[in-house]
């Protein structure tokens, strides 16, 4: 008897365990479905899977390029026409590549020295830029100088540590990233100098700092700091402007500067910016009309061992004003349009093609992207997919004023990706320009674009009132006249009823 009860209870327990486990395993299977390689954010900030916007054409490592000495910790990338310059920082040289196709690059030259200076070799060159006259500007970081070389690598000028009273004299000058404008003015980011971009005149004189980030601090922090001891104060973070990580000079001469040294709290409170577009005055003129702020991932969970906000290590700007930011933290590329809407986001950390370990530089050629990974010592070449090419086509046609064709391209984008908000708004804007207001309103309403909806609705309302003006007048008149008429009839009736003539 005792055995039977025991048997039954064990059997029951077995059933309970079996029933309990099945749903758990089913759940585990469902939860492994990660987000896709490419994604976008919708109006609500939900991540929407997307077809690939860019696809890897080829990954170039030292062996693919046929280099005898392998790349070592390369840091800088510069695209100039169909030439691509790679700063092989660890090997103190610069490699000049010529693009044959997106799947073939030839090594043209390996630049490791120049003429006209006793110290004619580089020491950890970290960036290169080429002016319109064809002069080379090289950030020779280890030697603490920026070199200006003519096309035959003869030294023209050296830009040294800026002479400025506000600068700590003990600091070693380490020019890290440089950009050149059309007049050969040099804008430089140097390690440890956080006053903004160092600006040199074409003749080599230092002319000031531009575009420093604003210092923000809480009043509470300030008071707290007043009471803290020296040791405590050293422990606290300083109220200093953040240093930029990289710069890019766009085709109009605006400097895009990005930084990763920002906290999640500052980004969310809009106290700090991950990217800035700096004009000649040093003011930030980046348009931020998107639903979501421009700092990469808005969901900063600690998935896969990576946490915190995106760390923008480089930025590049297409001629259609779409700019692509490179996130070193999660190995992703974020493309934003001229209004600040997220166009695409893709990538991840890993060893597969299209994934990165420590991406540090991004450049573009037409709409292709080059991404340099400093740990993998590899350049990944991305080309737009059909989907990506259609989006660019639609944007370019709209900018050219061909609204019908732009609308058609957006329609095809929508067929490829029904979760792509920009497609709906693009179709709506195309209808709006074609004066088909009702259709435009429908598309804007679907994706909550209130500004454009209001523009379309204003015109639609105007047309509607013009078409129905007769009905509106009649209704308005009726609203006044009928009650007035009833009142009049009643008062006449009342007068008749109470008239003396009938009572006598």
């Amino acid at each position, binding site marked *: 008897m005792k055995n039977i009860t025991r048997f039954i209870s064990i059997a029951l*327990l077995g059933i*309970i365990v079996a029933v309990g486990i099945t749903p758990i395993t089913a759940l585990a299977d469902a939860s492994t479905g990660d987000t896709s390689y490419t994604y976008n954010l919708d109006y*609500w900030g939900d991540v929407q899977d997307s077809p690939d916007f860019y696809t890897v054409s080829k990954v170039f490592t030292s062996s693919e390029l046929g280099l005898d000495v392998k790349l070592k910790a390369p840091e800088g990338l510069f695209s100039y026409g169909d030439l691509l310059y790679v700063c092989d920082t660890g090997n103190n040289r610069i490699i000049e590549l010529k693009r044959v196709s997106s799947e073939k690059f030839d090594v043209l030259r390996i630049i490791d020295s120049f003429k006209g200076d006793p110290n004619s070799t580089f020491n950890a060159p970290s960036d290169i830029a080429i002016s319109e006259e064809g002069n080379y500007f090289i950030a020779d970081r280890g030697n603490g100088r920026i070199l200006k070389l003519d096309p035959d690598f003869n030294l023209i000028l050296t830009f040294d540590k800026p002479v400025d009273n506000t600068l700590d004299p003990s600091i070693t000058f380490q020019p890290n990233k440089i950009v050149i404008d059309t007049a050969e003015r040099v804008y430089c980011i140097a390690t440890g100098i956080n006053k903004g971009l160092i600006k040199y005149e074409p003749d080599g004189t230092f002319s000031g700092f531009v575009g420093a980030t604003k210092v923000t601090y809480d009043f509470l922090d300030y008071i707290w700091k007043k009471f803290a001891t020296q040791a405590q104060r050293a422990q606290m973070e300083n109220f200093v402007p953040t240093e930029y990580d990289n710069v890019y000079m766009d085709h109009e001469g605006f400097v895009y500067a990005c930084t990763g040294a920002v906290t999640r709290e500052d980004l969310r409170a809009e106290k700090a910016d991950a990217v800035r577009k700096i004009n000649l005055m040093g003011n930030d003129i980046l348009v931020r009309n998107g639903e979501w702020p421009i700092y990469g991932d808005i969901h900063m969970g600690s998935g896969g061992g990576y946490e915190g906000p995106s760390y923008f290590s480089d930025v590049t700007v297409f001629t259609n004003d779409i700019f692509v930011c490179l996130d070193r933290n999660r190995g992703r590329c974020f493309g934003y349009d001229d209004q600040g809407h997220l166009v695409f986001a893709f990538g991840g950390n890993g060893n597969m093609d299209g994934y990165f370990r420590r991406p540090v530089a991004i450049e573009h050629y037409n709409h292709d992207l080059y991404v340099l990974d400093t740990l993998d010592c590899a350049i990944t070449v991305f080309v737009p997919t059909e989907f990506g090419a259609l989006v660019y086509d639609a944007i370019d046609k709209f900018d050219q004023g061909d609204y019908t064709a732009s609308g058609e391209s957006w329609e095809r984008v929508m067929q490829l990706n029904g979760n792509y908000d920009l497609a709906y708004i693009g179709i709506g804007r195309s209808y709006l320009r074609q004066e088909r207001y009702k259709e435009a309103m429908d598309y804007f*309403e679907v994706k*909550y674009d*209130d500004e454009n*909806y*209001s*523009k379309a609705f204003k015109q639609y*309302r105007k047309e509607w009132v013009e078409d129905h003006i007769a009905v509106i007048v009649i209704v308005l008149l009726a609203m006044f006249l009928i009650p007035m008429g009833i009142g009049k009839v009643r008062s006449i009736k009342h007068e008749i009823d109470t008239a003396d003539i009938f009572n006598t």
Partner: protein
Amino acid sequence: MVSSLTKKETWSEYWRSLKFAFYCMTHPVDGFWDLTHEHRGTYAAANTILIATLIVRLAKLRFTSFLFLQVYWEELNIFLYLASVLFPLALWVIGNWALTTLFDGKGKLGQVYMATCYGLIPYPVIQFPLMLLSNVVTVEEGQFYSVLSALSLVYAAILIVSAMGQIHEFSAGKNLLFTVASLFAMLVQVFILTIFFSMISQGVLYFISLVREFLFRL
């Protein structure tokens, strides 16, 4: 009870008391005095106003233009959304009655409820036309909407405060004092409820783990 529904007087009384809500809207002092002291208000009318408020609040979600109200339907729980009106209302009525009854308040619990519901009348009356209006304005003209929308809430708040003063026969100063005290009473109730529910769940968890342990040792 049911037989009274067929009588014509019942319905005319109901309509009269419902129309009286509009009198209260324009005469916040006289109206609410008469509401209880002259028996001009009925529970039926109070319930109707409350239901109208809830319906308008729900209808707004669907029929307000997306320019002013964007609804994330995936996360919307209609019952929680209705509770966002009903729960504070219940806390207010109980908290207000519990306090004022200790300090010479003349209103009964039911009267507090009735007067509060009558005080809600600006919400459906203003919000319903506003909901329709929102569909024929653009974003630039949206200021009308936001101002009127805020007005309906402020109006209702003023009516409720005034109503409490009248039904409890309080002076203006005492009324304000007890309004603030009632708000604190609401907080205290939330606190007690939170403790209550966490205690209950702890208690239930205790027995659950006991049973688990028992099954494990078996």
